C-alpha cells in the first residue's frame, strides 16, 4: 500500500506561556529563545499509522511531504528515521505567511505530482494555528473521502476502517480507498527513532519542490492571497490574583480552603 504522510514543523507547543511572544506589527510569533521547533505532535502519530499499515498490507511505500522553511527538513528526517521511505520538501519564498487553505492547495498539487497513492495520512490539526482544516482540504481538492480524528486505522488495501474519536464516545466508519485520514493523539505513542535508523535516514533522499514545480499560479501562493487574511495577532492578557491558602499542615490548608469556598458560597 502506498501512503503519503503530511508532516508540519511548528514552534514547540509546550513553550511556556511566559516565553510565548508575538510581534504584533508583523503579526508573527517570535521564536522563543533556545526552544527548537518540533514536528507537530500528531504527525509522528500519522507516520506511525502509515508504517504499521504498510507492514500489515505487505509492503508499498511511505512518502513524507512537508511544506515549510528549510528547517522543515528536520521534520521529514524524523519521519524517515521512523521508517518512512522518501521525503519531499515544499519550499518557496512565496510560502512565507500563507494560510492553511493555500497550504492545502500546495500539498494537494504535491500529492498529485507524487502520483500513486492509496491513502493520505495527516495529523488532526497543527498546534500552531490550531485549525485542523488541511485534511478536509486535501479530500475536497483531490476528490476523495475524508475521515477525521482517528484513534485506530486498519486496512485490507481496498478500504480503511477507522475508529473516530467523538465528543461523547467513538464512531467506527469505513471508507473506500484512496482516502484521507487525520490522526489524533488517542492513536497512541509513535515509535522513537533509534540511532541506527537516524543514520540510515540521513542517506534517504529528500526532494525539494518549488511553487513553480507544483504549477502554483502567482495568485495561489503568497501572503496577500490568503483565503483567511490575518488582521491582528496578540497575546491575550491573563491577570494573576491568586490567594495561596495558608496552613501548617495539608489538613489545615484543606480546612481553610473549605471555609473560603463556603464563605464565597461556592460549596
Amino acid at each position, binding site marked *: 500500500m502506498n501512503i503519503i504522510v503530511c508532516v508540519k514543523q511548528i514552534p514547540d507547543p509546550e513553550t511556556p506561556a511566559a516565553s510565548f511572544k*508575538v510581534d504584533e506589527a508583523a503579526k508573527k510569533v517570535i521564536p522563543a529563545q533556545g526552544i527548537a521547533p518540533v514536528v507537530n505532535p500528531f504527525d509522528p502519530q500519522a507516520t506511525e499509522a502509515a508504517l504499521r499499515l504498510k507492514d500489515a498490507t505487505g509492503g508499498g511505500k511511505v512518502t513524507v511531504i512537508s511544506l515549510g522553511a528549510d528547517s522543515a527538513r528536520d521534520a521529514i528526517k524524523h519521519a524517515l528515521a521512523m521508517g518512512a521511505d522518501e521525503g519531499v520538501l515544499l519550499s518557496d519564498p512565496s510560502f512565507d505567511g500563507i494560510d492553511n487553505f493555500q497550504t492545502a492547495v500546495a500539498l494537494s498539487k504535491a500529492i498529485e505530482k507524487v502520483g500513486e497513492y492509496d491513502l493520505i495520512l495527516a495529523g488532526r490539526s497543527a498546534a500552531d494555528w490550531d485549525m485542523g482544516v488541511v485534511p478536509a482540504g486535501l479530500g475536497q481538492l483531490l476528490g476523495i473521502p475524508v475521515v477525521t480524528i482517528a484513534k485506530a486505522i486498519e486496512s485490507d488495501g481496498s478500504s480503511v476502517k477507522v475508529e473516530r474519536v467523538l465528543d461523547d464516545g467513538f*464512531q467506527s466508519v469505513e471508507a473506500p480507498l484512496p482516502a484521507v485520514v487525520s490522526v489524533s493523539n488517542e492513536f497512541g505513542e509513535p515509535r522513537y527513532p533509534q540511532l541506527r535508523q537516524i543514520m540510515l535516514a540521513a542517506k534517504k533522499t529528500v526532494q525539494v519542490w518549488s511553487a513553480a514545480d507544483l504549477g502554483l499560479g502567482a495568485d495561489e501562493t503568497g501572503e496577500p492571497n490568503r483565503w483567511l*487574511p*490575518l488582521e491582528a495577532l496578540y497575546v491575550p492578557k491573563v491577570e494573576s490574583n491568586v490567594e495561596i491558602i495558608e496552613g501548617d499542615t495539608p489538613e489545615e490548608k*484543606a480546612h481553610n*480552603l473549605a471555609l473560603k469556598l463556603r464563605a464565597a458560597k461556592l460549596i
Partner: protein
Amino acid sequence: MPGILVIAEPNEGGIAPVSFELIAAARQLSSEGAGNVTALIAGSEAEAQQLIAHGADAAIAATNPALKTGLGEAYLPAVQAAIESSGADIVLMGQTSLGRDLGPALAFANKTAVAMDCVALAIAGGRLRATRSAYGGNARAEVTWKAPLQVATVKAKSFDALEADSARSGSVSTSDAGADPKVKVLGVSKAESTGVRLEDAPVVVSGGRGLGDPSAFGMLEELTGLLHGATGASRAACDLGWYPPSQQVGLTGKTVSPDLYIAVAISGASQHMAGMAGSKNIVAINKDADANMVKVSKFAVVDDYKKVVPALIEEIKKLG
C-alpha cells in the same frame, strides 16, 4: 440580502446547548447589520420551533436520514441548500465533532475559508471579523475572509444563549436535502455518562498527570459527588489511559465554564486552559507554587494532593 445560517445540533435529550449560543452570536451579528438569522437542525419541526423561540428568524428541520451519521460529508448538501434558500453569507457552527468535520469540508467545497474555534465575532465594514484562539490558546488571531462566504466554528460558552420565548414567531420549513456519504458508519459507542454532564456541571473537579496513579480518580469522584459536579481530566491523564477521552478538558477536549473548577495536579498548560479558562472560580491543588494553574486560580493550595484532597472531602462533609 445577506444573512446568517446557524447549524444547530441535536443531542440525546433534544438540542445541544451550543446551538442556542450560536443563535445568540448570530443575533448579535444581525444587530450589527448581518441580516436575518436562519437556523438548521437535523430534527423535527418541533425542534426547529425551539430554535425560533431562542432567537432565530427562520428555522429549517433537515429530515434526511443521512444527517444522523453526524458526518460533515452527509450534512454538506443540506447546508448548501440552506445557504441557497436563505441567501446566507455567514455560516456558524459549534467547535464540536460535527463542526470540526463539517466546517472545513463546507469551506473547501465553496472555495472559501473557515475560521476554527472563534471566541468573538463582529461585523466590520459589512463583513465578518472573527477572533480565534491559536497557538494552544497562547495567542488570539483576528481574521477576515477573502471569498464572499464566511464560515466559522464557535467555541462553546463564548456566547450566552438567549432565554427561550415561545411568543417569538418565525417561519419553519423542512428540507430533505442530504446525501449518503462515501464514508459508511459501522457503529457508534457512546461514552458512559454517569451523573452530571461535564459541559453542564456547575462544579468540575479535574485530575492531571501529577496524580501519579489512576486510582486517585476515585478520590476525585468522591469529591465531585459531594459537590454534585462532574469529573474531568487533563490530556496527559487521558493519554495514560487513566480517564476516558470524553472527559478530557481543553483545546482538543471539552470546554467547560463551571462556577467552580478544581484542578488537582494539573500544571495549567495553555491547551488545558483553552478548555476551562472561562470558569468563574478556579481552585488549584498543586505541589508546585510556580505552576501556571496556581497563578491563574482564585485560591490555591500548594501541597501534596494525596493529603489535601482526603482532608478536603472530610471538611466538606463536616460543613454539610
